[in-house]
């Protein structure tokens, strides 16, 4: 019984990440809204809070963010074979589509209408990423401290181009000192 349950989860992980791979346009962050909808809201495999942790880990470890995220979610849901299923799932759409495009590369570059559709998609992706941020923010306490950290990270990354890993490291050191050493409201740290 448990074994078939595990198989079901693995198959479902593969199919879900296949869909995520096929509909992620514009890299890592564009994947977040799909991850939210597919793995938190639809299947309840992980919690909203986990999404932020996973992004932090995917962003600050070497490798392709989309693959990092898939491997992590797969592992959390169904162990080693879950991570294999999710990683293969997210990779296969790219592999198939790019092989097809390579065959007709010059014609594809010249296809004006494809570029029009994708200009539209890129504008839509902005809305999607904003939506993911709004959703995720509901699971972080709205106190002065968190809001200041958010604004500082936004300004430093978007306006000053400071590396994301440095900022995550900064958050880590701050968290360790503020919540760990000074033991300021530990409950808050847990949320």
């Amino acid at each position: 019984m448990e074994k078939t349950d595990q198989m079901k989860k693995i198959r479902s992980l593969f199919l879900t990440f296949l869909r995520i791979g096929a509909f992620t346009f514009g890299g890592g962050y564009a994947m977040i809204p799909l991850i939210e909808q597919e793995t938190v809201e639809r299947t309840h495999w992980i919690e909203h809070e986990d999404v932020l942790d996973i992004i932090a880990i995917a962003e600050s470890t070497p490798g392709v963010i989309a693959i990092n995220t898939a491997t992590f979610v797969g592992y959390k849901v169904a162990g080693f074979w879950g991570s294999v299923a999710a990683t293969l799932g997210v990779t296969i759409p790219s592999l198939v589509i790019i092989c097809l495009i390579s065959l007709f590369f010059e014609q594809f570059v010249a296809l004006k209408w494809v570029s029009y559709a994708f200009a539209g998609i890129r504008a839509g992706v902005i809305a999607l990423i904003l939506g993911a941020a709004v959703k995720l923010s509901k699971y972080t306490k709205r106190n002065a401290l968190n809001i200041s950290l958010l604004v500082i990270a936004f300004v430093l990354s978007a306006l000053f181009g400071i590396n994301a890993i440095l900022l995550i490291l900064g958050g880590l050191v701050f968290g360790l000192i503020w919540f760990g050493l000074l033991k300021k409201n530990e409950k808050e740290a847990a949320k």
Partner: protein
Amino acid sequence: MSHLLLLFVTFFKIGLFTIGGGYAMIPLIREEVIGRGWLSAQSLTDFIAVSESTPGPFAVNIATFVGFDTAGLAGALCSTLGVILPSFLIILFVAKFFLTFSKNRWVQAAMGGIRPVVLGLIVGAAYSIASGILVIGSYSGFASLLSIVDWKAVIICVVCCVMQFKFKVKAIPLIGSAAAMGLLLYGVAPLIGW
């Protein structure tokens, strides 16, 4: 070294040394791929543009493209496997560690500081994409405001926001609608003289 093995090793290296994903990897890819004569600078630039018009992670796309272009399907499989393997192995290790210690007081304290920062980074990503797409010229006084903004993109973005926040439209249908609006505004509208 056979070409297939070289593809695998090269993209393994690219996967391993890319932190922060996607476009952060372009300089390294340029060096390796153009340096080895696998791709001309022009095809790489063309491909980056094409990659923006195809789904999937950029790193996987470019790996598959170079592999397929130089050695067919076997090449595509080798280079793609190469680029995803470092991520896979490292995250497997990290996930095991993180899930074991995630309830630890110090891990919780660190995550308490990291989560708001990650939220800021996500908003930052939306901002960077928006400033690259919605703004197409440089600011030169208040009067230039009208001409430096890509109003069609702004319209699509606003409509998508309304669909999402007000009508709770899900991501995949939203992407479909955005594509349709792109075709309509950039393709059909000029034809009928807008």
